[in-house]
């Protein structure tokens, strides 16, 4: 039964004919077991966060158990209210929403120029963008922070939104997709007197739904998870995001269980997003890496 499915296997090393040997059958079962183990290791920590956050503080500090004594959702709601988490969720959602819009428009427009319009000298820009892909933002974050302060954009969401519009990885993903679009449609639009911007909005974007989807999902996750720039821009402004709030626990007198529940709150949205869009997320990762 277990080995029947190997008849159709045509990827990797082991083939059905290998399994005539008992040694190889054991190997196949062993590999299967190890893979189950890997998935458990991958999932357990997040599962534990939810299990342990149902404990109360005394139980958490004294009882050396994995499972809580009781599942009481009211504790969760109390912590949500005590920590005013609605506010941080709201701020994070505001950052995410603006980031998605900016990410699609700006990265999309640049990729449109690089992949389709190709004005004279566009290669210089492409090279500069590729270098930006490899010299990550963290190294210049101090100078960026100083610049943002100089033009008075600190304590606002604006720099966070706009920074997602300058993402080299997204530009490359868009560019690859646009290059695969049928040229005839774009030519036809031009002959119909469609301006370059109109072509982008009414021809290119509607044809590019799959990649827009992938970049939207990636941007949501990146904007939700980002810490350093939101911390520098928003700390002390009263508009802190969820991740900034998590960091501030380092110097607060919150109890362990409260911190743990806050961690749980912060991972719920990415988990929901992943459960819905697992296919796009996993495929987007490999597509970007193999071709980029």
């Amino acid at each position, binding site marked *: 039964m277990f080995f029947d499915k*190997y008849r159709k296997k045509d*990827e*990797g*090393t*082991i083939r059905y004919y290998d399994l005539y040997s008992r040694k*190889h059958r054991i190997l196949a079962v062993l*590999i299967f077991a190890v*893979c189950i183990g*890997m*998935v458990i290791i*991958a*999932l357990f*920590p997040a599962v534990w*966060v939810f299990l342990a956050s149902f404990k109360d503080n005394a139980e958490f500090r004294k009882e050396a*158990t994995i499972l809580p004594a009781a599942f009481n959702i009211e504790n969760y709601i109390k912590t949500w209210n005590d920590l005013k988490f609605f506010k941080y969720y709201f701020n994070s959602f505001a950052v995410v929403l603006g980031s998605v819009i900016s990410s699609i428009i*700006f990265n999309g*427009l*640049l990729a449109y*120029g690089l992949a389709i*319009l*190709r004005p*004279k000298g566009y290669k210089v*820009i492409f090279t500069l963008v590729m270098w*930006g892909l*490899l*010299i*990550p*933002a*963290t*190294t*210049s*974050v*101090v*100078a*960026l922070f*100083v*610049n943002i302060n*100089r033009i008075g954009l600190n304590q606002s969401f604006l720099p966070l939104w*706009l*920074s997602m519009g*300058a993402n*080299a990885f997204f530009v490359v993903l868009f560019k690859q997709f646009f290059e695969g679009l049928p040229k005839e449609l774009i030519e036809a639009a031009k002959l119909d007197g469609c*301006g*370059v911007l109109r072509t982008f909005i009414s021809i290119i974007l509607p044809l590019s739904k799959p990649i827009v989807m992938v970049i939207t999902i990636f941007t949501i*996750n990146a904007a939700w*998870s980002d*810490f350093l720039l939101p911390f*520098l821009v928003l700390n002390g402004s009263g508009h802190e995001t969820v*991740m900034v709030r998590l*960091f501030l626990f*380092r110097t607060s007198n919150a109890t362990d269980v409260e911190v*743990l529940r806050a*961690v749980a709150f912060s*991972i719920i949205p*990415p988990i929901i997003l992943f459960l819905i869009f697992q296919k796009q*997320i*996993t495929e987007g*990762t*490999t597509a970007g*890496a193999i071709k980029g």
Partner: protein
Amino acid sequence: MKAVSNKKLGISKKDISGWLIMLPTIILFAFFVWEPLGESVRLSLYTAKGIRLQEFVGLDNYALVLNHPDFLAAFKNTFTYILWSLIIGFFTPIIMAVLITETVHFKGLFKIGVYFPNIMPGMAMVMMWGFFFRPGDTGVLNILLSKLGIESMEWLTNPKLTIPLIIATMTWKGAGSTALIYMAGINGINPELYEAATLDGAGIRQRVRFITLPNIFSLGKTLLILQVITVFQILYEPLVMTNGGPNNRSISIMQLVFNYAFRDYNYPAAAALSVMICIVLVILSAFYFKLTKSKED
């Protein structure tokens, strides 16, 4: 007439509209990516009061940063981080990819399962692992150990284990997505190669050794450099999990930048350190480009 003169210049209306379309994003890239690199250099050559530049001091900030005892610790740690990330972080995804490729049941579930940690926000992840590594009976790993009848361990407060454990958590987060990339590479190998090798009498181990691994070698080189670039900038883990301790044994260079800038408000010193990191990253990136270029040829 006009069209002719434009042609002479080599600039057409099409070029102008193309540049106009790209202009807003180019401005954003300039502000968020390119200009800060130049600004880092300028900032590093001055003294400053807050964000206001005072006077030109040449390379004094570099000397200050390099002579600080923390720098030597961070510099040494960087190599330890890279070493451990080669041992733990580089091979784990390759092994995972090879194993998952060999399964036929629940393969989709395996792929999604191992990818899952990658969607965890970095800050949430490091706080979560802090609970796992907590010394004493209520640390999660110690609970698990006690179930197996093993004594509690110190985990992060044991200086010998600090960096390997930090790398382990990074690997936990990143290995699954890297494994998917390797799997895509393995799936791209022509199946006939395996069949021909089998006819020649190659066993499973030999097929992995002489077909699978050589075929993902160039992918591995590329991912290795990306990994070193990532580890070079490690920040959240030492910042939140250990605060650089015990006794500076896990402090990272990016953490020094963070401390200079946002704890001491010494932006020029932070910028000087950033510039030096940047130079190293540029060199590594040049290697990366060379590798990917030769792959395409």
